[in-house]
């Protein structure tokens, strides 16, 4: 393990005092996050806490109201469009649904970023694309169309496309949602393997506690716009906070109540006028 100086080692992404509101509803209220280079970091939290929004802020798809978002030393919200595109060439992003180009074959999807951003000869592009597809185990599916793929396969193709340009950072948006257990296992393995073999930094947004804990080095738990807990999966497992326990164990009732706030049931039933 790399030497850790202070609380965090070598940060590749640093978020300081992030504020963002959607309409009247504050999504983030002074969020601080630090992501170490070369690690798999998970960002977990209940649905609707803005985990995906956080990814969009890190990649410059959404502008925050306030705060610093330093990615590899560059403050994302202040970048011009061209600078942002330069930065994005070093990022891979795995959308929840894959976001594959439905009119292109698997192979054409993977070569798309290579053709757009490099002047490499066609033979070399072909070699790179086949190697990326080999890495996700789908070299044999190169000629299929996205509509012919299962959900898990589509996500793997999208992963091959995301690493086509050899990014430094890769973002996974809910990579486990809607997959069968085998595909889930494949994705878990791929995240770990790609992270270690390509020297990536991986950031996973998810609420699948078990899968995330099996692959991540560090996890952030966020809720209501703030970081609730941070640590290795083992540390979170032992966390004393009732909220963290409820989330990690998936309990129906706890600090997050089972019932949405409502007036007393008996009062409501007895007091209600018949229509």
């Amino acid at each position, binding site marked *: 393990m790399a030497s850790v100086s202070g609380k965090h080692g070598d940060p590749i992404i640093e978020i300081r005092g992030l504020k963002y509101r959607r309409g009247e509803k504050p999504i983030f209220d002074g969020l601080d996050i630090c992501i170490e280079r070369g690690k798999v970091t998970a960002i977990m939290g209940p649905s609707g806490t803005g985990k995906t929004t956080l990814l969009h802020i890190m*990649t410059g798809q959404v502008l925050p109201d306030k705060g610093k978002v330093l990615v590899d030393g560059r403050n994302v919200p202040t970048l011009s469009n061209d600078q942002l595109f330069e930065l994005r060439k070093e990022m891979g992003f795995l959308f929840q649904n894959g*976001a594959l180009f439905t009119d292109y074959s698997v192979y054409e999807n993977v070569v798309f970023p290579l053709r757009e951003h490099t002047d490499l000869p066609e033979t070399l592009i072909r070699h790179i694309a086949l190697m990326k597809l080999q890495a996700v185990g789908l070299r044999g599916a190169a000629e299929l169309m996205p509509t012919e793929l299962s959900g898990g396969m589509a996500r793997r193709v999208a992963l091959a496309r995301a690493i086509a340009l050899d990014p430094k950072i890769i973002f996974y948006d809910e990579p486990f949602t809607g997959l069968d257990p085998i595909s889930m296992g494949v994705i878990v393995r791929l995240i770990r393997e790609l992270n270690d073999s390509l020297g990536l930094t991986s950031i996973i947004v998810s609420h699948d506690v078990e899968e995330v804990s099996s692959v991540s080095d560090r996890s952030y738990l966020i809720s209501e716009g703030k970081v609730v807990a941070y640590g290795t999966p083992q540390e979170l497992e032992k966390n004393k906070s009732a909220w963290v326990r409820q989330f990690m164990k998936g309990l129906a009732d706890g600090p997050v109540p089972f019932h949405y706030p409502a007036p007393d049931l008996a009062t409501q039933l007895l007091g209600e006028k018949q229509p």
Partner: protein
Amino acid sequence: MRLLREAWYILLGFLEMLGACGLFLLRLIRYTPYALRRPGLIFQQVFNIGAMSLVLIMVSGLFVGMVLGLQGFNTLNKFAATTALGTLVALSLLRELGPVMTALLFAGRAGTALTSEIGLMRATEQLAGMEMMAVDPVRRIVVPRFLGGVISMPLLVGVFNAVGILGGYFLGVIHMHVDQGSFWSDIHARVDLKDDFFSGVFKSFVFGMAATLIAVFEGYYAQPTAEGVSRATTRTVVNSAVAVLALDFLLTALMF
């Protein structure tokens, strides 16, 4: 009073859309030089938009030409002036019917296809995916389609006019026995290159720009839902039709 306010808001909404559309057009024009560096993408769209509309344009052109021939013959026959049938058909097509009819058909055939294609790419996050790969979807997707439409439209109008005149010829000369020589020589003598032919080409160019701009604009800014894309597609047809007819009036008033 309330009615006035409603009308005011509708007017404001219309102006806002017009402004957004204009800004989008400027953006497309600014990116045109980049797109010209990859002509393959534009030719692909000329094929998708233009060549794929050919059958519709030719069939419609044939019928419009035949109707012109029939109506023209019946009217001219009353004045014993059927030798002018060729001119009537050619001028009607070149000046008005060719550009306007083609633009309306174009909005229905190619415009809707463009809007729903781009709208669906938005709805399925393909545009966002492209942005995350540091590829600007306006440059890569929208501009080639826009240019493809702008190039296709005058070509389609040319085909429509040619087929339309042939339709008039079938009806007038072969069916109604108008003298073949006077049919063609009349066209030759009376149709002016600048006033009639180029004014039509200019119109078709303007209509092509308007119809394609509306189509890609509606697609790019469509609500990313099933209903949103369907509404955007409808708006493309309605707005293109109104825009083409209004522009036609404007250009006719200015040019003739």
